[in-house]
């Protein structure tokens, strides 16, 4: 009853309209026992930070396919820090050029995932980031 669940916000900032990947990840995290708040398309960084605050999430997954990640991600990170949520772990998924990955990690992003990533990997990384032991589900 009173067990703790990992709470994850899956959000799509910016203007691209493709949320299939975000939904696949949301579903995989649900099946891994997490509570996933899904916010839908075309969110501003302000909306995402506000939702993260109200929902008191442990993790945010940003799905970005538009190429605007170098503008959107730092904005989200700044807003989180400003509202006292620097503890929230931010992951980024989508189409991210290789050369941008180290820069995103340097900003404070915990993981960056491109096409073909196994959802198992994301689940493992989230457990590691929030400091909860990971136990794979029994088949």
């Amino acid at each position, binding site marked *: *009853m*009173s*067990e*703790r*669940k990992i*709470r994850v916000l899956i959000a799509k900032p910016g203007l691209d309209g493709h949320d299939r990947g975000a939904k696949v990840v*949301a*579903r995989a*995290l*649900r*099946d*891994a*026992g*997490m*509570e*996933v*708040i*899904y*916010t*839908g398309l075309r969110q*501003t960084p*302000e*909306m995402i930070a*506000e*939702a993260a*605050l*109200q*929902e*008191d999430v442990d993790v945010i997954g940003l799905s970005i396919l538009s190429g605007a990640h170098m503008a959107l991600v730092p904005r989200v990170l700044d807003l989180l820090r400003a*509202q*006292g*949520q620097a503890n929230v772990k931010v992951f980024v998924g989508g189409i991210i050029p290789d050369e941008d990955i180290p820069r995103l990690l340097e900003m404070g992003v915990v993981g960056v995932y491109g096409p073909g990533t196994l959802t198992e990997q994301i689940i493992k990384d989230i457990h590691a980031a929030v400091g909860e032991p990971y136990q794979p*589900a029994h088949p």
Partner: protein
Amino acid sequence: MSLAESVLQGNRLALARLLTQVENETSQGLEDLNRLFPHTGKAHIVGVTGAPGTGKSSLVNQLITAFRHPPEGQQPRRVAVIAVDPSSPFSGGAILGDRVRMRDVAGDADVFIRSTASRGALGGVAASTANLVQVFDAAGFEMIFVETVGAGQAEVEIARLAHTVIVVEAPGLGDDIQAIKAGILEIADIIVLNKADRPLADNAERALRMMLELATRKSNPATDESPPLLEWRPPILRTVATEGRGIQEVVDAIWHHRHFLETSGEWERRERRRLCAELENLLQAALMKRLQETISPETYQGVVDDLVSRQLSPRQALEILLDGVKR
């Protein structure tokens, strides 16, 4: 400073954190809840329930907007939403998607939306929902909307929790025999026929009217109490929530119902009923826990073994376990 004190001072991050503590029933969270309780009892709790896909979230989105931007001469209200979605019975995880439809109010500091998973509870709300309501109430939110999981015929728990229950229907969901079955329509204080621009809306409204005509509430749905002195007849209101049509009428109906509750003495009765139900739930959980502590796991498993091998019936097993407690 404790989270409870920060919440009373209007700190939103503290509010978010306390909601998590309360939802997880941590000892800290429950202690803070005790501290907040004297500050509760002021909010108007509105339940919104109905079948999946009838438009509950879209309606709530419009209602928040309407209460934040009322017609001239009325005060805007501080609004909180608790949106419950189902937990997977297999993984325990959940997709909480009600926020998708509640984005017209983004950036308003006097609106707070919290998504929550049912975590195995079957009544349409979570075990912790009543506690989350208390936190919002103490934090000074005047209107608290509780959106249930998509509910069918038996998820009537919301009637114990809310002052006003809105049941959302949509055209084409069932014939008139559905309307006369027991359950969710009986708990309605306000019936909203959403998606009223769809074909068959007239048929749906006719079926609902017929049901209401037949209904003379004999007693309170959640208890055996006698009926209120003044009769409240649930209005049937047509809306198209995605376009904002018919929303002001729903807001007016909420105010009318509140006036009815206050003038008929029903408000106090519902408060009493609500707190009584909460106490009962707590008692059940605590007694169950105490029982489990007094019976060793070996004894318990032994009784279950006898049950499985049909040497004991469930009732005989119960007697053996209870005897163990009395001894």
